[in-house]
Structures are given as C-alpha cells and as structure tokens.
C-alpha cells in the first residue's frame, strides 16, 4: 500500500530564511504527488502537484518542489519565507482514486 512520510513534525525558521520540508513516499509506480497547506481551522489549499515531466515543479506563493525518484522524495522548498507562511503543510500521494496524506509539518516563522 502507498504511504507518505513527513519526518519533521515541527520546523521553525526566521523570516527571510530558506525553507525545505521533507516528504518521502512509498509506492511501486510513478505516483501523483501533491503539497497542501492548511491554516488553523481551515481546509487544505493545494500548493503544487507533480504528475510527470519536469521534476522541478512550481507552485503558488513562491513554493517549489522537486521529485527525486531515486530517493522516493518530493521535498518542498521556498527561497525566502514570509511570516504569512506559518501554517501546517501536508504532502500527499494519489494512487487510483485514493489520496493518502502524510502526518504534516507545522511551520513556525520567527520575526
């Protein structure tokens, strides 16, 4: 069965610093991969997605992610974090009709 691992439960970065959130997946074939962001008490918003093609994908709000098949990873990056980026971030993998999420990484941004 497919699975998603986000090894970092909580990350704190300073505003203006770079960010990388880790995601590893387990799936036999090439997966469809996603990153979502959730503000407190809200639903999830899609940041970006990877289906095929260029392994570096650009998303909204200045985020990007890189698919590395050899490492089964899909890490999320942002060159310069803004205080408004503080939220919880979820990596997800789609197989057939199911969308499986990781346990999330809570991002705190210090000023």
């Amino acid at each position, binding site marked *: 069965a497919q699975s998603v691992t986000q090894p970092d439960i909580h990350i704190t970065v300073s505003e203006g610093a770079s960010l990388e959130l880790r995601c590893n997946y387990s799936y036999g074939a090439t997966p*469809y991969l*996603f990153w979502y962001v959730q503000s407190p008490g809200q639903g*999830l918003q899609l940041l970006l997605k990877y289906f095929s093609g260029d392994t570096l994908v650009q998303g909204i709000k200045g985020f990007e992610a890189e698919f590395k098949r050899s490492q089964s990873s899909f890490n999320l990056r942002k060159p310069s974090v803004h205080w408004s980026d503080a939220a919880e971030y979820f990596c997800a993998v789609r197989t057939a*009709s199911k*969308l499986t*999420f990781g*346990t*999330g990484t809570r991002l705190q941004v210090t000023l």
Partner: protein
Amino acid sequence: SQTIHQWPATLVQPVGSPLSLECTVEGTSNPNLYWYRQAAGRGLQLLFYSVGIGQISSEVPQNLSASRPQDRQFILSSKKLLLSDSGFYLCAWGKNTEAFFGQGTRLTVV
C-alpha cells in the same frame, strides 16, 4: 467554477447522539468524493471515498458510515457518537488528479 460546501462549521454533540455531516459539490459532475478526519498530530486519515452514486469504500472500520444519495452529495453519519469521534472532518472532491477541500467541521463529542 467548482465549489464545495460543507456544514456545519462547528458541532458539539453528546456521547451516544447521532451525527449527520453533509457535503455538496457544485460545478462538476461525477466527482470522486472523500471524507477525512484530522486529529491533532495524526495528519489526515481517509475515512471513506466514493467514485459514484451508491459506491462507498471504507478505509477505517469504526462506528461511522457514509452515503452518496446523489452525484454531488456526500453524507457522513453515525448512529451513536463516541468521545473518540471528536475531531476535524474534511470533505473533498476530485477527478483523477488533485482533490479540493471544504472548510471542515469541528466536531466535539462531550
């Protein structure tokens, strides 16, 4: 454009009472529909998904059930709530790509 409506936003229910959460989608047809539960520190747990009317797949055995009486309506139910049913419930829809989420229902069982 497509929209998803989920209600109520918050709900406080006594143990042993029934539950009905409703989710509807507009602007698309024959979507895949999902119910997720989010508990603190446990990410999003897929409860049910449906690929068509009357077709429900259950991911986690529990005292919850789901129904899809119409193409764009997805209902989460329970006959008797448990304390452990407390959490944040999210409905989502998708085709065979990404999923789009409602704003969620915060359920507190007391």
